[in-house]
């Protein structure tokens, strides 16, 4: 190759010739990026299956299925139940535990509490790792920028020892430093997009769960009065 005019500007060479702090930043960014992509895919599957299961359960429930058989189905351990099903099972189980003739208000109160507890646990499960995506989305560009700034600082510092500065002296240093920014952005952009997507999806699921809880309380209350 023509070594006098142009340096080796291949991607790998740029990374390996970068200074240690920049390399460290790059390593951190690669790890962050990998983790964030992992969570993105995990959440994708979780949220998608949750939406499907909620659809399915609501469909069965509002078609007027027998509550007892639904409860059986929800508590059978072989079956993978969805969040909504678990909320229903918690509420219905609590409701059934009270002997007939107990004060309706008290029964409904405890039923609602049981459902709310399960609801909160489920929401926590659904929202787990979302904050990680948000953090990655907001922080990794800065981390990348830190690496870039460091690299550019270094390349300018080395310029001070040269009498006649040309762009060729600084260019490789800046190029390798900019790789850090590229990595940060590569990690951040999908994380932000995924965070917004999943936050919306879980919000909508939460609304559905809450309205279902209210409706189920009504159904159970009517049942207890009768």
């Amino acid at each position, binding site marked *: 190759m023509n070594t006098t*005019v*142009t340096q080796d500007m291949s991607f790998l060479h740029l990374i390996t010739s970068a200074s240690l702090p920049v390399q460290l930043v790059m390593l951190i960014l690669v790890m962050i990026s990998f983790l964030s992509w992992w969570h993105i895919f995990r959440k994708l599957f979780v949220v998608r299956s949750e939406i499907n299961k909620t659809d399915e359960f609501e469909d069965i429930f509002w078609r007027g299925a027998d509550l007892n058989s639904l409860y059986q189905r929800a508590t059978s*351990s072989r079956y993978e139940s969805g969040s909504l099903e678990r909320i229903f099972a918690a509420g219905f189980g609590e409701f059934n535990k009270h002997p007939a003739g107990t004060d309706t208000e008290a029964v409904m109160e405890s039923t609602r509490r049981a459902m709310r507890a399960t609801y909160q646990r489920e929401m926590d499960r659904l929202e787990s790792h979302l904050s990680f995506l948000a953090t990655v989305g907001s922080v990794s560009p800065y981390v990348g920028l830190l690496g870039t700034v460091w690299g550019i600082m270094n390349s300018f510092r080395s310029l001070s020892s040269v009498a006649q500065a040309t762009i060729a002296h600084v260019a490789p240093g800046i190029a390798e430093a900019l790789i850090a920014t590229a990595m940060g952005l590569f990690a951040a952009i999908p994380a932000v997009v995924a965070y917004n997507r999943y936050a919306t999806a879980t919000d909508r699921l939460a609304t559905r769960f809450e309205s279902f809880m209210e409706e189920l309380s009504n159904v159970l209350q009517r049942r207890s009065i009768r």
Partner: protein
Amino acid sequence: MSINVLHFHSYSEPKKFLSGALALLMHIMFIAMMVFGLSWKNQPPEGMIVDLWSELPKPVQEPEPVASREPSKAIPPSEPLKPKPIEPPKPEVPIKPESSKQTTSPKEITPPIKKPDIELKQKPEPIKEIKPNLEDLKKKEIEERLKKIEAQKKEQELEKKQALEKQKEIEKQKELAAQKQKEQEAKARRDAEARHAAAQQVAARNQIAGEIAKYKAMILAKIRSRIVMPPDLPGNPVVEFKVTLLPGGDILDVKLSKSSGYSAFDSAVERAIFLSKPLPLPPDPALFNEFRNLNITVHYRE
């Protein structure tokens, strides 16, 4: 505590490892893109090659003679073939086979039948003298039959030939039609090209005219910006200069062609012309001829 029981079971997350693998795949793709996708400049840029054209290439107009030649080529083969069908009827004339042109074919077929009769020599003699013999009559009869058969054969052949020829003709007509279509298409294409080229030329001319006007305006503006106007001249005096330019915008010569009547104004404009020395010229050297001798007219008040 059924709630707890519910809480513990079925929390297995779907496709945990699949998502890990997918994440890995994403990164491998990203790295591959960075390593191979972007060719980080390793070679110095290659030199440029510029073709200089004195004028636009003219649309090719040769194809027409070729087109007119082709049909004539196509017709001749059919003409020599036609006479054949007209010739054959002659053999039907029964008795004078030897004198006519078709001697060859009867001779070839007659010998096998003559052999049973007697010899070859005897045959011409009896005809020359008289024709008393039964043998002669028989011969004649046989000959006549043979001729009839032959005529029939020939007719059949003729029919076959005619059928073949018809087919050929049909094919030829098809070919001709195809050729015609092709020609028409080619013509249409040529016309379109010619029109396109003409439009291009017009556009180019317009562009050139626009360019020239633009640069003249630029030159005038540059000179105008350099003029230090003498104050308080009455009216709107006009001065005209003849400027000779060198390629590159340098000024070779400036001549006063029409004075304004105010020497202060004249000299101010002349100075301004020299001051705005590299005059803006179009980058296309072909347009320089338009600028070689410039007439510059400056009004005192715009």
